[in-house]
């Protein structure tokens, strides 16, 4: 019995269903998370970075187009919407503390939010990035579904923004401990809030693994930054030029 042609047929059949893309995403992530655990929760072993590298490597090796993969992966991608809504829960749990700190939090958030967008645009522009890339860079500190919506509104490329957002999150999650220790920030609320402002959901996932308090403040910063950037950035781009 000749197995090779049968396997070929099975591959052709399976690559036409969403099953492979979905299973690959879950397997790659669980392996990445296992690596992260094995490393003792080191920020360098970022699970998103490892999982993305595995997925991209396997798709390239098998010559599978991203669009085919995404037919399956979209089910995971879709959950970003309900997960964004679910952030209301940790926010509500922290409500009494948030109320006491409302003013300082809002001021710090606006400062961080504007710094993120302005410095990304300025550095990209100074180093000669193309106009679409610059517009795709502007919302990169905001969580994916929000950032993609903003990119579309200000003339960027939503799918490029998604990649820049994920990279930003990985950079933030990897660098947070070192940077915040160097700045002598001890308060977990402050640490979490800074991580959530700069590195959205991936930073928040990391913060939740450090402490519940850091996670809740990171989630809060991520929501507030999402809303603030979604409101401010389109207005700024409209005011500043074509």
């Amino acid at each position, binding site marked *: 019995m000749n197995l090779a042609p049968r396997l070929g047929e099975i591959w052709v059949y399976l690559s036409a269903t969403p099953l492979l893309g979905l299973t690959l995403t879950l397997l790659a992530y669980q392996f990445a998370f296992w690596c992260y655990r094995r490393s003792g929760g080191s920020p360098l072993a970022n699970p998103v970075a490892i999982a993305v590298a595995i997925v991209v490597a396997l798709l390239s090796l098998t010559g599978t187009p991203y669009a085919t993969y995404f037919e399956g992966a979209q089910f995971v991608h879709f959950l*970003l919407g*309900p997960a964004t809504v*679910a952030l209301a*829960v940790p926010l509500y749990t922290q409500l009494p503390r948030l109320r006491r700190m409302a003013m300082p939090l809002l001021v710090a958030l606006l*400062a961080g939010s504007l710094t993120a967008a302005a410095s990304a645009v300025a550095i990209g522009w100074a180093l000669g990035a193309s106009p679409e890339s610059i517009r795709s860079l502007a919302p990169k500190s905001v969580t994916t579904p929000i950032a993609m919506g903003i990119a579309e509104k200000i003339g960027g490329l939503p799918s490029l923004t998604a990649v820049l957002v994920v990279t930003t999150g990985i950079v933030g999650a990897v660098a947070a401990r070192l940077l915040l220790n160097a700045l002598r920030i001890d308060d977990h609320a402050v640490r979490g809030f800074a991580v959530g402002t700069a590195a959205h959901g991936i930073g928040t996932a990391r913060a939740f693994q450090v402490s519940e308090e850091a996670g809740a403040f990171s989630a809060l910063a991520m929501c507030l930054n999402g809303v603030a950037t979604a409101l401010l950035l389109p207005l700024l781009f409209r005011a500043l030029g074509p």
Partner: protein
Amino acid sequence: MLAALTLLLLCQLAGEILVQLLALPVPGPVLGLVLLFAGLAARGRIDAPLRDTANTLLQHLSLLFVPAGAGVMIHAARVADEWLPLTLALLGSTLLSMAVTALCLKFLLRRRNAGSPRP
């Protein structure tokens, strides 16, 4: 669990509909978040199934970014052309905004705590 998931989707759906109806600049899920938060605040308590479902979703938040991250494949040419400005813009702005937020908040909290001594 099922009821909680339905509630999350209903909030998202209501958010999407309101955004379209009122031509709001925010994405639907963000408005959904605001709606759920307002609902919880109005009710004054949170049921265990909703809390558990939300925590389960948020525990694996990183997983949800994998499909979008793999999209780097379709932008390989652009990323290869503009890797320097893109990398430095991401690195610089992420570290800068994290530092600005942290220092700003630390300063404001300390100033406020100095003004009103802790009980």
